[in-house]
C-alpha cells in the first residue's frame, strides 16, 4: 500500500470525470499501452454489461490510444511514462486509484484484451450480479482467464477496430488446466490452456497463471498483490469452496491470440517490461514463428457462458 502511495507521483491526470460517479456505481480499472485498435469494442462491451465509469491508466502510448478516449463522459484517464515493470505491471498505479476512488464500490479490474463473462451475463446486467453478491455477503468474485484463439494461422483474419475479437478467436481449450493451492495467500494457482500446451510443455512451472479475481467490492484497505491473481487481505482469495460445493465464478475471455499478438510480442521483447524479462514473450515469439497454429482438433468452439458452465470452467454456484 505504501508502494501505491509512492507510485501515485508517477501518475498524471489527463481527463477527470470522477465527479460524475454516484454511490453504488460499478467501476472498471484498466492499464494499457498502444491498444487503440481494441478500445472501441472494449468500451462498448463493458458499457453494455452496465459499467458506470472507466478508469484508464495510459502507459506512454504513441498510437493515439489516449486521444481516442478523450471527451467520453464515463471515462477518466491518467497518464504515466514511468516503468510498467517497476510499478509491478501497473498494479501499484491501480491500487492507488482504487484506494482513492473505489472505496465501497464494486470494481472490475481487467486488461484491454480481457472480456468478463459470468453466469447469466446474456440476460442479466452486471448489477444483478453485484446486488446478489452483496445480498450473499460475498466480497470478491473469481474469473479464470480463458485463452481464445482462431482456427488456422493468427495472420489469416486480421482484427480491425470495433470488431468482436471472438468472431476470429472463437476457440479454447476445455479441459487441460492444472490447479494447486497457494498456501501463503490462500488462493488457487491455475495454469494450463493453449499457452502451457504449446509454449511451456517442457517447463510447466513457468506457464502463466490463469487464476484471477477481477471483481471486488473494494475497500480502501484492500490491495492487489500481483496483477489481479491475488489480493490482500487473504480472505478475499477464498473464491473457491473446499468442502465439495461449488462457489459462483466466471471467466475472462482472453483475446490475446489475434494477428496483433505477433507485433505485440516483438514490441514487448524490445521493452522487456513483462514478467521474467519477457521470457514468456520470447517463448511465444520463437514458437509462433515456426508454427503459428494454436488450434487443434480437440479445441472447443465458444458458444456462450452456459457452455463454459457445463464444461466445468465456471459455475453458477447457488445463483439461479
Amino acid at each position, binding site marked *: 500500500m505504501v508502494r501505491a502511495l509512492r507510485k501515485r507521483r508517477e501518475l498524471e491526470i489527463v481527463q477527470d470525470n470522477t465527479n460524475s460517479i454516484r454511490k453504488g456505481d460499478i467501476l472498471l480499472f484498466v492499464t494499457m499501452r498502444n491498444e487503440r485498435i481494441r478500445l472501441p469494442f472494449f468500451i462498448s462491451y463493458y458499457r453494455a454489461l452496465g459499467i458506470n465509469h472507466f478508469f484508464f491508466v495510459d502507459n506512454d502510448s504513441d498510437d493515439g490510444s489516449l486521444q481516442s478516449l478523450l471527451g467520453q463522459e464515463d471515462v477518466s484517464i491518467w497518464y504515466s511514462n514511468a516503468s510498467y515493470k517497476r510499478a509491478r505491471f501497473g498494479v501499484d498505479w491501480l491500487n492507488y486509484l482504487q484506494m482513492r476512488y473505489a472505496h465501497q464500490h464494486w470494481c472490475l479490474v481487467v486488461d484491454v484484451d480481457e472480456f468478463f463473462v459470468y453466469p447469466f451475463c446474456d440476460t442479466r446486467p452486471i448489477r444483478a450480479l453485484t446486488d446478489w453478491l452483496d445480498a450473499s455477503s460475498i466480497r470478491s468474485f473469481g474469473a479464470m482467464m480463458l485463452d481464445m484463439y482462431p482456427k488456422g494461422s493468427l495472420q489469416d483474419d486480421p482484427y480491425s477496430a470495433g470488431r468482436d475479437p471472438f468472431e476470429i478467436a472463437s476457440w479454447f481449450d*476445455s*479441459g*487441460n488446466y*492444472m490447479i494447486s493451492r497457494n498456501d501463503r495467500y490462500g488462493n488457487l494457482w491455475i*495454469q494450463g490452456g493453449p499457452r502451457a*500446451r504449446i509454449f511451456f510443455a517442457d517447463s510447466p512451472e513457468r506457464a502463466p497463471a490463469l487464476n484471477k479475481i477481477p471483481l471486488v467490492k473494494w475497500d480502501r484497505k484492500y490491495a492487489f498483490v500481483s496483477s489481479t491473481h491475488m489480493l490482500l487481505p487473504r480472505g478475499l482469495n477464498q473464491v473457491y469452496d473446499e468442502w465439495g460445493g461449488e462457489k459462483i465464478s466466471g471467466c475472462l475471455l482472453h483475446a490475446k491470440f489475434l494477428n496483433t499478438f505477433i507485433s505485440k510480442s516483438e514490441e514487448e521483447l524490445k521493452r522487456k517490461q513483462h514478467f521474467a524479462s519477457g521470457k514468456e514473450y520470447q517463448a511465444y515469439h520463437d514458437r509462433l514463428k515456426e508454427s503459428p497454429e494454436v488450434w487443434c482438433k*480437440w*479445441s472447443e468452439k465458444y458458444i456462450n457462458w452456459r457452455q463454459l458452465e457445463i464444461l466445468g470452467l465456471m459455475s453458477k454456484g*447457488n445463483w439461479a
Partner: protein
Amino acid sequence: MSVGIVMLVHDAVDRAEQVARHWAREGCPVVIHVDRRVDRETYDKLVSDLSDLADIRFSVRHRCEWGSWALVAATQTASELMLSAFPDVEHVYLASGSCLPLRPIQELRDYLARHPRTDFIESVTTDEVHWTIGGLDAERFTLRFPFSWKRQRFLFDRYVKFQRRIRFKRRIPADIVPHLGSQWWCLTRQTLSAILEGPERRRYDKYFSKVWIPDESYFQTLARQFSSNIESRSLTLSKFDFQGKPHIFYDDHLQLLRRSDCFVARKIWPNANKLYKAFLFDEPVSTSSTEPNPGKIDRIFAKAVERRTQGRPGLYMQSRFPREGFENGKTCASYSVFEGFSDLFEDFEGWLGKVTGARVHGHLYGPERVEFAGNQTLFSGALCDSADLRDYDPKGFLTSLIWNTRGERQCFQFGPRDNQEISWLMSTDTNAQISVISGAWAVPLFHSNLNFSEIRREAARLQRVESAHLDILNSQYTKARVRIWKMAEFIEAPMEPLQTIIDEIGVRSTRRLTEVPKMSDLTGFGQFLRNLKNQGMQPYLMGDFPVENEDPRRLKDRRRPYLVR
C-alpha cells in the same frame, strides 16, 4: 367480499409504489408499512405519489431489523389498521414491497372466494422443518437472542453457545405449540382479529418478542390456536437458499413464473424491468389451471442449492477445489486400470477396445510421454502428451481426463515403469476398477536385449516399485475395485478373470468372449526367473513358475485347455 393487502416495504420504494398501485387499481385496499430506516424524504414522496388512490393507508412506522420483533409489530399495526379501516375485507394478504402479483387479481379473489373460511399459512412444528439456518429451530423458542445476527454475529454465536453450555432454557407458554413457516400468509378476518384481539395477546407478545425471527413463528403459532381451517402452505412463491436468503427472480425467469400459476412471487430484483412490465402493465394473461404449481421453479432452486453444497462430483476447477476427503467423488465416472496385461498379451489394447468398445489408452503415465489411445499427441479437452506437463499435476491429469470424456468409458495401462503419484488417488477412488497381474513387468525384460546385470538391476527396481504400489492397493483405505493375480496364477486360467473384468465394464455385450488376446512367448521364462534368483535378486511377485524350458502357455494348454465358444 375482498382481499386486503398488507405490504411491508424496506427498500426499492419506487417498485413498491408500482405494486401498491396495481393492487389498489384492481380493487384491493392496501395498507403500507414503510421501514423506519427509509428516509423521510423518500417516504413523503411515496405518500404523495399514492395520494390519488383512495384505498391506500400508511401505518405507523417501525424500525425493522432482520430477525427482530419489530417486523411482527409492524405487521400487527398494519393489520389492525386494515381490519378497522376496511370492514369489507375478508382475507388479509401479507406481502412485501418486492413481491409481484403474477396472476390477474380477480383470479386470486375467486380462489379465496372458493375457500372462504380457509387460512393460508405455512405452519409446521419444529420437528418437521429442515430449512432453518444456523441449526436453530427448536432453540429459537427456548434461548434468548439479544444480539443481532447480521451485525453482531460473533456475539450472537458466543451467546448461543454459552446458553447451551449452562443449559439455559426459556419456558414456552403452556398453551401454545411452537410452529414455524413462511413469513408470507393470507389469513381470514376471523383468525387475524382473534390473534390481534385475543385476551392473552400481551402475554404472547412478551414471549415472542424474545424469540429469534418471530416473523416466521408468531402468526404461524397463533393461527393454530384460533383458526378452524388451516391450509399449511403459502400462496406466495418464495424460495430460500441454504443460507436462508430468498432466491431472487430476474427477467429471464418470466416464462417460469408465468407457468408457475402462483398468485404472488418474491423476491423480484428491483431492476427486472421486463418482469414488472409483464405482470403489472401488460394485458394480464389468464391461466387455465387454478391451483398454484411451483414444481419447476422448486426444482431449479433445489438444484442451485445442491450445486452450491455438493457440487459436481469429480470436478476440480477455480471455484470448486475440495480438500482431500471432501470430494464427494474423486472422479466423475468409472474407469479401468490394467496393470501387467499389455506386458503379458500382445496388442492387449487393440483387443480390449474391440471387445468393450471403450476408449483404451496405453500407459498414460509412461515415462517418455502420455500414450493416448490411437497414438494421438493431444486428447479430449486438449490434454497434451507431454510427460512434463502431466507430471506437473499428475492427479489433476487423471481427474481432468475422466471429466473431459464423460459418457465414454476410459481404460488405461499402468505399471511400475510409470509415474506412481496417482496410486493413492486411484486406490481410494470408488470409480476405479484396477486389475493387476503382478510381476508381468518381467516379461518385457525377459524379451529385451539388455545385459543381464542391467536386467537384474531394473527388475529389482520394478519389483520394489510394484510392491509399494500393491501395498497401497491392499491398504485398508482402498475403495477401488481391486483384483490382483500373481502372474503364474493368472496364466493358468486367463479367461475367467478376463471375462469377469469385461463383464464388469459391461459396455458392449454380455456374451462370452470369443476372441482371446494373444499371450507373448514365454518359453524359457521360468529359467529367466531362476537366473535372476541365482544372481541374487529374488523375483517373488510373479508367483511360482516351473523351470522346464517349455512355454508355459502350451504346458497349461495341455493341462486345462481353455474353451472358446
